[in-house]
């Protein structure tokens, strides 16, 4: 996968006497080898195994029936309705979480780029959602916030209704009525601080004199943002979107915890569907094929991600 993009050429090694060149090369390589071998063993071998398993008809409930079946698992992956629904859910979930959290993160980053009273504290409080253990935050949303009887949402609604003299607010079962938005909201809450941090880093890297010059030239704040800040931030926004996509596509904790993929399969995304295929249907071959398809999808996203990161690399090298 290293050939996905053109990587910047490394600087030519300094000229050395011919005899010691080989030794020097190996002396440079040795510190690298343990990590490289370990990574290949633990990450690449399982993938090769997944490829192999994906060509087998293999259900653990029928032990005698394991046999080679060619690409039929892939045919199943692309025609199965549940899986197609899972692909669609994955796209909806990932796209909405990433886009909303990038927009909110951008707004917050713009605010936190300026000095104001208690900025340090505000920043610390803002990153808390990202630090809370994902399973814990999923449970928190499911029970402490969405719960129809004693959740914070309905509780607040009740309080508002009573304040205006009504008896009680409506009792909404948020997770059952709006399963996908419920999952999306909890993930947006979790990922906005991540986007905010990346974009804030981008804003702080912006040279102040350019902004000042724009002010002197009579640019309005909106113009300054549109023509100076936004182009400068583009790379950081791209990076945020791409990293966010790579992480959010893999969402498992929130779906597993908040909705268990339901109601029906309305919130079943690909990782959760693969999990079900593996540990509920015990169809190992199908699960492996679906896994390979996810990997191919991720590689497509990753290609774009690598381009973005490589351009940041070039920037660093040219400094």
């Amino acid at each position, binding site marked *: 996968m290293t050939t996905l993009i053109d990587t910047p050429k490394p600087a030519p090694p300094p000229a050395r006497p011919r005899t010691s060149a080989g030794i020097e090369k190996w002396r*440079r390589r040795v510190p690298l080898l343990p990590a490289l071998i370990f990574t290949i063993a633990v990450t690449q071998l399982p993938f090769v195994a997944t490829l192999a398993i994906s060509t087998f008809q293999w259900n653990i409930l029928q032990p005698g029936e394991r046999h080679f079946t060619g690409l039929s698992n892939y045919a199943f992956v692309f025609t199965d309705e549940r899986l197609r629904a899972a692909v669609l859910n994955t796209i909806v979930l990932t796209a909405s979480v990433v886009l909303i959290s990038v927009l909110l993160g951008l707004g917050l980053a713009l605010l936190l780029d300026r000095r104001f009273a208690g900025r340090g504290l505000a920043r610390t409080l803002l990153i808390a959602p990202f630090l809370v253990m994902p399973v814990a935050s999923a449970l928190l949303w499911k029970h402490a916030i969405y719960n129809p009887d004693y959740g914070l949402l309905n509780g607040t609604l009740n309080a508002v209704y009573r304040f205006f003299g009504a008896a009680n607010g409506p009792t909404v079962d948020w997770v059952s009525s709006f399963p996908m938005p419920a999952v999306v909201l909890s993930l947006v809450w979790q990922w906005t601080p991540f986007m905010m941090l990346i974009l804030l*880093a981008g804003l702080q890297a912006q040279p102040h004199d350019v902004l000042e010059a724009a002010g002197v030239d009579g640019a309005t704040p909106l113009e300054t943002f549109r023509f100076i800040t936004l182009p400068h931030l583009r790379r950081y926004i791209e990076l945020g979107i791409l990293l966010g996509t790579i992480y959010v596509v893999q969402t498992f904790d929130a779906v597993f915890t908040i909705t268990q993929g339901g109601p029906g399969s309305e919130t079943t995304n690909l990782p959760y569907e693969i999990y079900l295929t593996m540990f509920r249907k015990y169809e190992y071959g199908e699960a492996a094929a679906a896994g390979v398809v996810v990997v191919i999808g991720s590689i497509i*996203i990753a290609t774009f991600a690598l381009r973005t990161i490589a351009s940041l690399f070039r920037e660093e090298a040219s400094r």
Partner: protein
Amino acid sequence: MSDQGATGTVIQRFRARRHPADHGKELRLSPMWTFVAWLATLAFFAPVAWMALTSFHQEADAATNPPSLLAPLTLDQYSLLLGRDVTPFLINSATASIVSTLLVLLLAVPTAYALSIKPVEKWTDVMFFFLSTKFLPAIAALLPVYLIVKDIGMLDNVWTLVVLYTAMNLPIAVWLMRSFLAEVPREILEAGEVDGARLPTVLLRVVAPVAMPGIAATSLICFIFSWNEFMFAVNLTATRASTAPVFLVGFITNEGLFLARLCAAAMLVSLPVLIAGFAAQDKLVRGLSLGAVK
């Protein structure tokens, strides 16, 4: 020790370059926008604050509607949790996270050295190979890993998690450590070499002081990711090796739900990461973006 003096000046110049003194030029937020900023901040923090508050309540006070803000506070939920069931899970989490973080450092520091200070040929290719492993969704590896682990009898074993978490965090650590080591100015290294300092001396005297904050930040980030990991933990462990996130799964069902106890448990397992994250927030962003952004 003439090289010490020379090296010292270079370090000073290097530090000055890293922290340009233009903080005074930062623009101020107007009062109205300050209000908006704080409103947004509090909106995002509210669920966490709510979790903290509820965790100090009795169950009866936690499950009222509308919620009772002024109910008496108590530590009962925490003593209940720590007294009985959560401790083994916390110990497993700590073992898996700390040991894997140490292993990651052991592997990543030499690697980063070989990729930045004395780079091997095609070092960018190696970097992108490490990164590409992060793009493989973990779910695609779960099946073969599960089968292999089952075959060698390592299911429900905390050392299985140690190995997996090490592999999971190693690419991040390599990228981060490289970006920190790349900041060690060449002048210092060359000055050291010209003065005839041997490699261990250069590493210990020159590289280590500059890289130490980076090593600390890398450790924290690896610790956070391992501590929070759920999918491998829930599928590869059963009773003996389960970690804190798996403990929380017991709270999924609605029947017999104890909200205050759930909040206390959620607080308890999130606390180490919250503290670590608050302590290293400026380094966090670099870790999360794999060192690509500073």
